[in-house]
Protein backbone atom coordinates (compact mmCIF):
# COMPACT_ATOMS: atom_id res chain seq x y z
CA UNK A 1 0.00 0.00 0.00
CA UNK A 2 1.27 3.48 -0.81
CA UNK A 3 2.64 4.87 2.47
CA UNK A 4 1.35 8.40 1.98
CA UNK A 5 -2.12 7.11 1.13
CA UNK A 6 -2.02 4.63 3.99
CA UNK A 7 -1.13 7.36 6.48
CA UNK A 8 -4.13 9.37 5.33
CA UNK A 9 -6.39 6.37 5.20
CA UNK A 10 -7.02 7.18 1.55
CA UNK A 11 -6.89 5.12 -1.59
CA UNK A 12 -8.03 7.33 -4.44
CA UNK A 13 -10.03 5.59 -7.17
CA UNK A 14 -9.34 2.19 -5.60
CA UNK A 15 -12.81 0.86 -6.39
CA UNK A 16 -12.42 1.81 -10.02
CA UNK A 17 -8.93 0.30 -10.06
CA UNK A 18 -10.21 -3.02 -8.71
CA UNK A 19 -13.03 -3.21 -11.23
CA UNK A 20 -10.51 -2.51 -13.97
CA UNK A 21 -8.24 -5.28 -12.68
CA UNK A 22 -10.99 -7.87 -12.75
CA UNK A 23 -11.89 -6.69 -16.24
CA UNK A 24 -8.21 -6.96 -17.21
CA UNK A 25 -7.80 -10.58 -16.15
CA UNK A 26 -11.12 -11.48 -17.74
CA UNK A 27 -9.84 -9.96 -20.98
CA UNK A 28 -6.58 -11.92 -20.66
CA UNK A 29 -8.63 -15.08 -20.05
CA UNK A 30 -10.58 -14.38 -23.25
CA UNK A 31 -7.37 -13.86 -25.24
CA UNK A 32 -6.00 -17.14 -23.90
CA UNK A 33 -9.15 -18.99 -24.97
CA UNK A 34 -9.46 -17.24 -28.34
CA UNK A 35 -5.83 -17.95 -29.29
CA UNK A 36 -6.12 -21.45 -27.85
CA UNK A 37 -3.20 -21.39 -25.44
CA UNK A 38 -2.57 -24.35 -23.18
CA UNK A 39 -2.17 -23.67 -19.47
CA UNK A 40 1.62 -23.95 -19.85
CA UNK A 41 1.54 -21.41 -22.67
CA UNK A 42 -0.74 -19.22 -20.54
CA UNK A 43 1.91 -19.11 -17.84
CA UNK A 44 4.51 -18.07 -20.44
CA UNK A 45 2.16 -15.31 -21.58
CA UNK A 46 1.99 -14.02 -18.01
CA UNK A 47 5.79 -13.93 -17.85
CA UNK A 48 6.04 -12.11 -21.18
CA UNK A 49 3.52 -9.36 -20.40
CA UNK A 50 4.33 -8.73 -16.73
CA UNK A 51 6.00 -5.37 -15.99
CA UNK A 52 5.14 -4.15 -19.50
CA UNK A 53 2.71 -1.61 -20.86
CA UNK A 54 1.14 -3.66 -23.65
CA UNK A 55 -2.29 -3.05 -25.13
CA UNK A 56 -4.71 -5.98 -25.41
CA UNK A 57 -3.98 -6.17 -29.14
CA UNK A 58 -0.24 -6.44 -28.41
CA UNK A 59 -0.96 -9.10 -25.78
CA UNK A 60 -2.98 -11.08 -28.32
CA UNK A 61 -0.03 -10.96 -30.76
CA UNK A 62 2.35 -12.13 -28.02
CA UNK A 63 -0.06 -14.98 -27.24
CA UNK A 64 -0.03 -16.03 -30.91
CA UNK A 65 3.78 -15.87 -30.94
CA UNK A 66 3.96 -18.10 -27.86
CA UNK A 67 1.67 -20.61 -29.52
CA UNK A 68 4.09 -20.76 -32.47
CA UNK A 69 7.28 -20.78 -30.40
CA UNK A 70 6.08 -23.44 -27.95
CA UNK A 71 3.79 -25.70 -29.99
CA UNK A 72 4.17 -28.73 -27.75
CA UNK A 73 3.86 -26.98 -24.43
Amino acid at each position, binding site marked *: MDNAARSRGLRPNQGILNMARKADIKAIDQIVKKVGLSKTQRR*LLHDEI*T*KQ*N*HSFEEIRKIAEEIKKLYPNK
Partner: protein
Amino acid sequence: MTIVTPDIVVQLRSQLMGLECWYASAGGKHVGSTFSLALGARIPREKPLENSAHPEEYRNYEGEANLVVWCTWRVDGQDAPESSSDDTDKGIESALGSLVGSRIVDVVVERPAWDLRLLFSPFHRLRLFCDHVPGDPSFDGNWELHTTKESYYFGPGVSMESESR
Protein backbone atom coordinates in the same frame (compact mmCIF):
# COMPACT_ATOMS: atom_id res chain seq x y z
CA MET B 1 -4.24 -34.16 -17.77
CA THR B 2 -5.06 -36.11 -14.60
CA ILE B 3 -7.55 -35.47 -11.84
CA VAL B 4 -5.78 -36.03 -8.55
CA THR B 5 -6.87 -36.77 -5.01
CA PRO B 6 -6.57 -34.60 -1.89
CA ASP B 7 -3.39 -36.36 -0.74
CA ILE B 8 -1.73 -34.01 -3.21
CA VAL B 9 -1.65 -31.58 -0.29
CA VAL B 10 0.97 -33.75 1.39
CA GLN B 11 3.03 -33.74 -1.81
CA LEU B 12 2.76 -29.98 -2.16
CA ARG B 13 3.89 -29.48 1.38
CA SER B 14 6.95 -31.66 0.95
CA GLN B 15 7.83 -29.94 -2.32
CA LEU B 16 7.51 -26.39 -1.00
CA MET B 17 8.89 -26.58 2.52
CA GLY B 18 12.26 -24.88 2.90
CA LEU B 19 12.34 -23.32 -0.56
CA GLU B 20 13.66 -19.77 -0.83
CA CYS B 21 11.79 -17.20 -2.90
CA TRP B 22 14.26 -15.56 -5.29
CA TYR B 23 12.01 -13.56 -7.62
CA ALA B 24 8.55 -12.01 -7.61
CA SER B 25 7.05 -11.15 -10.98
CA ALA B 26 4.22 -8.65 -10.74
CA GLY B 27 2.88 -5.41 -12.15
CA GLY B 28 2.29 -4.00 -15.57
CA LYS B 29 -0.66 -2.88 -17.64
CA HIS B 30 -3.53 -5.39 -17.89
CA VAL B 31 -1.82 -7.88 -15.57
CA GLY B 32 -3.94 -6.74 -12.65
CA SER B 33 -2.88 -8.10 -9.29
CA THR B 34 -1.76 -11.46 -10.68
CA PHE B 35 1.80 -12.48 -9.92
CA SER B 36 4.27 -15.33 -9.82
CA LEU B 37 7.02 -16.36 -7.42
CA ALA B 38 10.16 -18.31 -8.33
CA LEU B 39 11.21 -20.67 -5.54
CA GLY B 40 14.17 -22.93 -4.83
CA ALA B 41 16.97 -23.84 -7.20
CA ARG B 42 17.47 -22.03 -10.52
CA ILE B 43 16.44 -24.31 -13.36
CA PRO B 44 17.47 -23.34 -16.93
CA ARG B 45 14.54 -22.50 -19.17
CA GLU B 46 14.06 -24.26 -22.49
CA LYS B 47 14.16 -20.82 -24.12
CA PRO B 48 14.93 -17.49 -22.41
CA LEU B 49 11.99 -15.16 -21.86
CA GLU B 50 11.91 -12.28 -24.34
CA ASN B 51 10.52 -9.84 -21.78
CA SER B 52 13.40 -7.45 -21.10
CA ALA B 53 11.64 -6.03 -18.04
CA HIS B 54 12.72 -9.10 -16.08
CA PRO B 55 16.31 -9.49 -14.84
CA GLU B 56 18.59 -11.76 -16.86
CA GLU B 57 18.46 -14.38 -14.14
CA TYR B 58 14.69 -14.79 -14.45
CA ARG B 59 14.75 -14.61 -18.23
CA ASN B 60 17.14 -17.57 -18.29
CA TYR B 61 16.02 -19.55 -15.24
CA GLU B 62 12.81 -20.54 -13.51
CA GLY B 63 12.47 -21.90 -10.00
CA GLU B 64 12.43 -25.54 -9.04
CA ALA B 65 8.92 -24.57 -7.95
CA ASN B 66 6.96 -21.64 -9.40
CA LEU B 67 3.75 -20.28 -7.94
CA VAL B 68 1.41 -18.42 -10.32
CA VAL B 69 -1.52 -16.58 -8.72
CA TRP B 70 -4.64 -15.46 -10.56
CA CYS B 71 -7.01 -15.03 -7.58
CA THR B 72 -7.44 -12.69 -4.62
CA TRP B 73 -4.59 -12.66 -2.08
CA ARG B 74 -3.03 -10.85 0.87
CA VAL B 75 0.46 -10.61 2.34
CA ASP B 76 0.59 -10.18 6.12
CA GLY B 77 3.62 -8.87 7.96
CA GLN B 78 4.45 -9.46 11.59
CA ASP B 79 1.70 -7.27 13.03
CA ALA B 80 -0.36 -6.03 10.11
CA PRO B 81 -1.30 -6.68 6.50
CA GLU B 82 1.30 -5.31 4.09
CA SER B 83 -0.55 -5.56 0.82
CA SER B 84 -3.24 -7.41 -1.08
CA SER B 85 -4.75 -7.81 -4.51
CA ASP B 86 -6.79 -4.72 -3.58
CA ASP B 87 -3.65 -2.58 -3.33
CA THR B 88 -1.88 -0.25 -5.74
CA ASP B 89 0.79 -1.63 -8.08
CA LYS B 90 3.46 0.05 -5.98
CA GLY B 91 2.20 -1.56 -2.77
CA ILE B 92 1.86 -4.97 -4.42
CA GLU B 93 5.38 -4.94 -5.82
CA SER B 94 6.81 -3.78 -2.50
CA ALA B 95 5.06 -6.49 -0.46
CA LEU B 96 5.85 -9.31 -2.86
CA GLY B 97 9.42 -8.05 -3.03
CA SER B 98 9.62 -8.46 0.73
CA LEU B 99 9.17 -12.22 0.25
CA VAL B 100 12.33 -12.44 -1.85
CA GLY B 101 15.15 -13.95 0.17
CA SER B 102 12.85 -15.66 2.66
CA ARG B 103 12.03 -19.36 2.91
CA ILE B 104 8.75 -21.22 3.13
CA VAL B 105 8.41 -22.70 6.61
CA ASP B 106 4.78 -23.81 6.56
CA VAL B 107 2.19 -24.73 3.93
CA VAL B 108 -1.55 -25.03 4.53
CA VAL B 109 -4.09 -25.87 1.83
CA GLU B 110 -7.74 -25.53 2.74
CA ARG B 111 -10.53 -27.39 0.99
CA PRO B 112 -12.91 -27.29 -0.71
CA ALA B 113 -11.55 -24.51 -2.93
CA TRP B 114 -7.79 -25.00 -2.38
CA ASP B 115 -7.15 -21.76 -0.50
CA LEU B 116 -3.41 -21.63 0.16
CA ARG B 117 -1.49 -20.20 3.09
CA LEU B 118 2.30 -19.98 2.93
CA LEU B 119 4.36 -18.91 5.92
CA PHE B 120 7.71 -17.39 5.01
CA SER B 121 10.56 -16.95 7.46
CA PRO B 122 10.73 -14.99 9.64
CA PHE B 123 7.11 -13.81 9.70
CA HIS B 124 5.48 -13.04 6.35
CA ARG B 125 2.33 -14.89 5.40
CA LEU B 126 0.93 -15.15 1.89
CA ARG B 127 -2.75 -16.08 1.77
CA LEU B 128 -4.55 -17.00 -1.43
CA PHE B 129 -8.34 -16.75 -1.43
CA CYS B 130 -9.68 -18.79 -4.31
CA ASP B 131 -12.49 -16.53 -5.46
CA HIS B 132 -12.87 -17.84 -9.01
CA VAL B 133 -15.73 -20.30 -8.88
CA PRO B 134 -17.72 -22.08 -11.59
CA GLY B 135 -20.34 -20.12 -13.42
CA ASP B 136 -18.64 -17.25 -15.16
CA PRO B 137 -15.36 -16.64 -13.30
CA SER B 138 -13.18 -13.78 -14.43
CA PHE B 139 -10.38 -16.29 -14.94
CA ASP B 140 -10.18 -20.02 -15.58
CA GLY B 141 -8.17 -20.88 -12.48
CA ASN B 142 -7.07 -19.61 -9.08
CA TRP B 143 -3.42 -20.61 -8.70
CA GLU B 144 -0.83 -22.93 -10.18
CA LEU B 145 2.32 -24.61 -9.01
CA HIS B 146 4.94 -25.70 -11.54
CA THR B 147 7.70 -27.99 -10.29
CA THR B 148 10.44 -29.61 -12.34
CA LYS B 149 8.28 -32.69 -12.91
CA GLU B 150 4.63 -31.66 -12.53
CA SER B 151 2.30 -28.74 -13.00
CA TYR B 152 -0.70 -28.41 -10.68
CA TYR B 153 -3.72 -26.25 -11.53
CA PHE B 154 -6.16 -25.25 -8.78
CA GLY B 155 -9.63 -23.93 -9.58
CA PRO B 156 -12.00 -22.61 -10.51
CA GLY B 157 -13.93 -23.96 -7.53
CA VAL B 158 -13.03 -27.45 -6.39
CA SER B 159 -11.35 -28.47 -9.64
CA MET B 160 -7.72 -29.50 -9.48
CA GLU B 161 -5.62 -31.01 -12.22
CA SER B 162 -2.00 -32.00 -12.70
CA GLU B 163 0.10 -32.84 -15.69
CA SER B 164 3.66 -34.03 -16.21
CA ARG B 165 6.11 -31.48 -17.55
